[in-house]
């Protein structure tokens, strides 16, 4: 489609302003993170003496190493667990007919519509009763059932050629073998898209970890940043280093798999 000349100029101008307003805060953050304390409050974006001291300071000053381990560990467990449970449930919905199947499926998908706020009080109390408070268990287990994963994987499995499955079963493969040896190896694109979604979602999560983490035992990066903000309001250099550190994994994934990440997020409608 060809727009008229003046409209094109206005369009580019508006887009440039929007892009600049997105990039400017990021630029300020990066610039502050590489400044020495005596320069932090200066307006210039490029410091006289660029430094990585703030990053070192961040890890000395706080338990950021430990927070990173907690975040990476629980995120890895969640990705693996959510995918595994999603594959199992999706297989049941896609390849079996059984009583109440459609009702159960509606109940599973319906869980997507129930935001975490509505269940946080009883879940918080349950964590305390189970003794899971301030452990990895509380971060991982309540999040393992993922309706969106079940929904997407079921769709992919239903479009899977049934001849292949029949052939496998002729050769004596049971459901379990068929699922893991025949179907899952062919779900590559769907699984990698889900991995990206779950990874970013889990890495950036704020609300639930805020409730159930209390110490270095389980505190994640995001909650560590909040604590750092409240304890050391003035150390802006290290704070900016911290938020850069917290953002690097998601941005790295994006840079490697640009198209796929964007398509995945847009088609699932998940707002970061």
């Amino acid at each position, binding site marked *: 489609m060809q727009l008229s000349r003046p409209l094109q100029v206005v369009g580019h101008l508006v887009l440039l302003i929007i892009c600049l307003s997105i990039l400017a805060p990021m630029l300020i953050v990066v610039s502050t993170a590489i400044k020495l304390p005596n320069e932090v409050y200066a307006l210039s974006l490029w410091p006289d003496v660029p430094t990585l001291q703030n990053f070192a300071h961040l890890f000395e000053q706080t338990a950021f190493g430990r927070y990173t381990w907690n975040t990476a560990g629980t995120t890895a467990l969640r990705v693996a667990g959510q995918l595994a449970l999603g594959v199992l449930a999706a297989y049941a919905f896609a390849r079996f007919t059984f009583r109440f199947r459609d009702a159960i499926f509606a109940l599973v998908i319906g869980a997507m519509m129930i935001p975490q*706020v509505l269940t946080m009080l009883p879940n918080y109390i349950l964590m305390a009763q189970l003794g899971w408070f301030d452990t990895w268990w509380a971060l991982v287990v309540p999040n393992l059932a993922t309706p969106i994963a079940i929904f997407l994987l079921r769709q992919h499995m239903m479009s899977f050629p049934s001849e292949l499955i029949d052939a496998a079963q002729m050769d004596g493969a049971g459901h379990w073998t068929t699922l893991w040896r025949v179907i899952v190896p062919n779900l590559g694109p769907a699984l990698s898209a889900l991995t990206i979604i779950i990874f970013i979602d889990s890495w950036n999560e704020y609300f639930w970890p805020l409730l159930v983490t209390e110490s270095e035992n389980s505190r994640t990066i995001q909650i560590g940043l909040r604590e750092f903000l409240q304890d050391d309001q003035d150390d802006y250099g290290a704070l900016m280093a911290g938020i850069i550190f917290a953002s690097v994994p998601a941005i790295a994934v994006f840079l490697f798999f640009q198209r796929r990440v964007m398509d995945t997020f847009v088609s699932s409608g998940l707002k970061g």
Partner: protein
Amino acid sequence: MSMLSPSTGATLNAVAPARRDGWLVSRLGADSALVPWLYLAPTLILLALFTYWPLLQTAYLSLVDWNMNPSQPTQFVGADNYGRVFGSTLFQTALLNTVIYIGASIPLKVLLPIPVAVFLWSLGTRGHFYRAILFLPTLISFVVVGVAFLWILNPIFGYAKQFFALAGYRLPNLLADPDAAIWVIIGISTWKVLGFNMLIYLAGLASINREYIEAMRMDGAGDLTIFRRLIWPLLTPTLMFVMISTIIFTMQQVFTPIDLMTEGGPSNSTTNLFYMIYQYSFVTFDVGGGAAGTMMLFALLMILALLQIRLFDRRAHYKQ
């Protein structure tokens, strides 16, 4: 798409050698009606335990008086909590603020991206560079965004302050001003979600056949006519989706910047319903009040869901 029914499975089993299944499945018999339930069990147990049962429990907790101390008995008080929360100034302020958050979000986050997305779409593949930048805020956590803007808006040394000072304007401390603070939060949440909504519109636009536009152009239609008569009607389903998801986003996700930047203040001017529930439950440990607030929010979300279904129904009606 053929489903493998238990009966065809049995015929296959008769000719096939022994199946290499897990021990549990083989003990139960591969074609037992129980098999699908075994695959579903982990998911169903987790959903029951952490989603559906807690939902019922929240309804129960909204009828009791309890301070979350296990040694303290829970006392049944009926609908008292609802009356108490509903009558509180905190609830009324939070409700009003929620309306402001949503009201401001629709022009900023839902409508503004449309013309920009249409322009971006007209660029075709040349717009790819813009798209990558527009997507960036989606990847970054709201904590990161909140901390970054706290530094930029720092009342003494922040970039915003110094920048305005260069232009000869004295920027007040926006986050300490009860009238301005909510607009800071709205601005930041717009920053976070604007580009993403634009990309969703772009996905919706991608399904429009460009030949229609060429045809209209041949008939002498201008840009505005094409937008009004072709693009806008075809984009309506996407618009509805963006609208509903943005309202839900605005009700929930804004929790993070509120908690980090203002903690609901100054004088509750930035509290929304979600943050109010958090304050009741985990700041004052008034479980009954928190649960009653939760149920009221639940009702509001249900109304939104029904509204969404009705809107979609009406659209389906137009199509006939």
